[in-house]
C-alpha cells in the first residue's frame, strides 16, 4: 500500500515538473489579444541552458517592455513538445505575433501551419527550422555561424606573422569543435576553414570535439599538447572550451595568449575577462541581445511592411584592448 502511494506521489511530483514548463502561459488568460492597437507577442524560449540563453531571455523581456509590447513568455526547458504546446496556446489566445527559438530543426510544419491558418505571423530567433515551406515564417533573426567562423579565420590570416609563435613559417592550428552535428559547430568550422584557405601556411593539424564544455575543451587540449608537435594557434568554437583549454595550456607550462594564440567565439563574461587578462587573443561575438531587433521586426510585420527573410544579429569582434573597455558593461 505504502509502496503504491509513494509511486503515485512521485508520479505527481514528476508531472508537476512537466506542468511548470508551460505554467506561465495560463496566467495570461485567453482574451488579452486585443484590437486596441497594442501588440501582444508570444515567445517560446528554448530553456535556461546557459548564461548566453539567460541574457537572451532578459534582452527579449526588457526590449518588449521598452517597445510597449505585451510579452507572453514560456520556457520549454529544452523540450520540443513543450514548445509546440506553448505555440498552440498562443494561437488559441490569438496573440498578434509569435516568436520562438526552435529547440530542434525539424518537426515544426504542423504547428506552424496552424499559426498560418490563424493568420498569426511567426518570427524565428537564433535558430532555424528545417522546412521546405518558407511561407511558414516571416523572418529568421539570428547569427550567421559561418560568418563567425570566417571572422575567426580572417584574424589568423591578418595576424599570420604574429600568430607564428615559433617562427618556423608554418602556422599549426588546433581546433576544438562544438557538439558534433550541432549547426554552430558545423558552420563555424566551415567558415574558419574557408577563411584560412587564403594562406597556405596556415593549417589545421588537429581537430576534435570538446562538446562546447570547459571540461571537454580541457581534456582534448591536454591530448593535443602531448602530441609533441608545436601548436601556434588554438581555435575554440566557443568561449567555454577555450577557457578549459587555457587551464590545460597553463598546466603544460606554456603561457596562453603568448606561446599559443587563442581565438574563441561567443564573448560571454568569463571569456571577455580572459581576453582582457591577455589569455585569449581574439573573440568573435555571438550576441544574445537580439531583443530590440526582434521588436522592430515584429512591428514592421504587423504594419504590413516587407521584412527580409534572413536578418543577421548585430555583432562585433573583440581584441584585448576592446575587451578591457567593454568588460564593465558586459551583461552576460
Amino acid at each position: 500500500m505504502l509502496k503504491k502511494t509513494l509511486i503515485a506521489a512521485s508520479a505527481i511530483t514528476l508531472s508537476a515538473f512537466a506542468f511548470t514548463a508551460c505554467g506561465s502561459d495560463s496566467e495570461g488568460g485567453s482574451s488579452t489579444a486585443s484590437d486596441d492597437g497594442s501588440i501582444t507577442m508570444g515567445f517560446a524560449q528554448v530553456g535556461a541552458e546557459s548564461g548566453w540563453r539567460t541574457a537572451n531571455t532578459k534582452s527579449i523581456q526588457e526590449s518588449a517592455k521598452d517597445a510597449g509590447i505585451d510579452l507572453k513568455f514560456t520556457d520549454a526547458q529544452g523540450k520540443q513538445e513543450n514548445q509546440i504546446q506553448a505555440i498552440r496556446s498562443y494561437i488559441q489566445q490569438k496573440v498578434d505575433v509569435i516568436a520562438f527559438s526552435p529547440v530542434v530543426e525539424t518537426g515544426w510544419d504542423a504547428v506552424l501551419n496552424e499559426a498560418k491558418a490563424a493568420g498569426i505571423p511567426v518570427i524565428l530567433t537564433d535558430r532555424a527550422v528545417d522546412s521546405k515551406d518558407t511561407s511558414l515564417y516571416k523572418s529568421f533573426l539570428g547569427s550567421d555561424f559561418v560568418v563567425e567562423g570566417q571572422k575567426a579565420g580572417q584574424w589568423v590570416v591578418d595576424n599570420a606573422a604574429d600568430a607564428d609563435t615559433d617562427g618556423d613559417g608554418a602556422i599549426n592550428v588546433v581546433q576544438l569543435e562544438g557538439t558534433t552535428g550541432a549547426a554552430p559547430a558545423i558552420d563555424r568550422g566551415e567558415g574558419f576553414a574557408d577563411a584560412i584557405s587564403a594562406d597556405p601556411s596556415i593549417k589545421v593539424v588537429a581537430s576534435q570535439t570538446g562538446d562546447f564544455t570547459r571540461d571537454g575543451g580541457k581534456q582534448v587540449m591536454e591530448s593535443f599538447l602531448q602530441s609533441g608537435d608545436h601548436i601556434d594557434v588554438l581555435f575554440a568554437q566557443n568561449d567555454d572550451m577555450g577557457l578549459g583549454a587555457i587551464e590545460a595550456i597553463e598546466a603544460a607550462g606554456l603561457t596562453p595568449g603568448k606561446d599559443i594564440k587563442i581565438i574563441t567565439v561567443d564573448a560571454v563574461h568569463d571569456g571577455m575577462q580572459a581576453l582582457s587578462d591577455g589569455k585569449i587573443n581574439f573573440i568573435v561575438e555571438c550576441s544574445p541581445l537580439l531583443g530590440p531587433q526582434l521588436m522592430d521586426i515584429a512591428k514592421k510585420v504587423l504594419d504590413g511592411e516587407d521584412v527580409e527573410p534572413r536578418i543577421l544579429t548585430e555583432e562585433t569582434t573583440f581584441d584585448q584592448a576592446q575587451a578591457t573597455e567593454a568588460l564593465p558593461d558586459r551583461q552576460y
Partner: protein
Amino acid sequence: MPETATLTQRVLRHPLLWPVLALVVLLLINVVVKPNFFDIRMQDGHLYGNLVDIVRNSAPVLLVALGMTLVIATRGIDLSVGAIAAISAAVACTRIVGAGDEAALTTAVLACTYALAVCIVLGAWNGFLVSVVGIQPIIATLILMVAGRGISMAITDGQITTVRNGWFSDLASGYVLTLPLAFIIALGVFVLTAILTRRTALGMLIEAVGINPEASRLAGVRSRTIIWTVYAFSGFCAGVAGLVIAANTNSVNANSLGLWIELDAILAVVIGGTSLAGGRFSLTGTLVGALFIATLARTIPNIGIPSELNYLFKAVVVIAVCLLQSPKVRALFRVHRRGPSVPVLAKGSAA
C-alpha cells in the same frame, strides 16, 4: 581442480586477465600511432605526460564506479550518480562563491563537506526508495537522475558558476609527491572500500544480499541496512567525483557536469568483471575498467579519430571487450578445452 592448476592456468582463468589485456592493447595502439605516447617528464615539480593525464582524468569515473560496484553487487543500479555529482558541484561552488573569503582553505573545506553531506542524504534517499519502499532500483534512481539535474540547475540559476579558490582547484589540478591529487583521492577511496569490504565480512554480506536478499535476511543479514548503506556510499562517491570534475575547470555547468557518467561507470564496472546480476564484485576490476574508460577517451584525440566517428569507435571497442569477456566467445578461442566451462564461471568470485 584449482589446487592442481599450474601458474599459466591460474593466470588464464584469472577474471582480471581480459580487462587488463584490453587495457594493454589499447595503450599499445596509442604507442604505435604516437611513439611518444608514454613520454613522461617533470613539469613545474610534478610528472607530466599522457599516462599522468589518464590516471588524473580517470578519477571521477573511478570514484563513481566504486560506489556503483557495491550497488551492482546488491543486484541494484544507481542511475542518479551524474545528477548527484552535478548537485554536489553546484552546492560546493555556490557556497564558495557566496563565502566571505572566497580563496580561503576553510571555505573550500566547509563547502566540500557540506556538499558531500547533501550527497550522502541523496544517496540515502535512493536507498530508502529501494530497500524500504521496495521500488525497483532502476526506477527509484531514475527519479533523482531526472529531478537532480533540475535541482542543480536551480541551485546555480542555470548559470555557469566560476570559482576562484586555489585549494578547491587543487582537488583536480594539484599534485602530491609529483602525482595528481585527484587520482590519489580516488585511490584512497578505492583502498578504503577494499579494506572495508574484503578485510571484514561486509563484502560477503553485500554479495549475499545480491544473490538473495530474502534468504540473507532470514539468515540474519540485515539486508535493508546494507542496501541503504551502499546507495548512501554511492551518493558519497558521486559527490566526490562531482567536486573533482568542478575543480578541474574551476566552474560548474549544471547542464553538462557529470552528464552520462553513470553509463561510463556502469561500463567500467562491467568491463572489470562485476556481474550486473549481482552477487559478486571485483573492486580491482573496476579500477582497471575506469582506467580503460579514461584511456579510451584519450585515445580518440591522440590517434586523431574524426569527431563524427567518436561514438562509433567507442562502440566498436566496447563491443570487442565485452565479446572477450563472454565465456562462450572465449571458449571458441580455447585450443584445449579443459572440461565444461560452467564450473570455471561458478568459482569466479574475484578478489
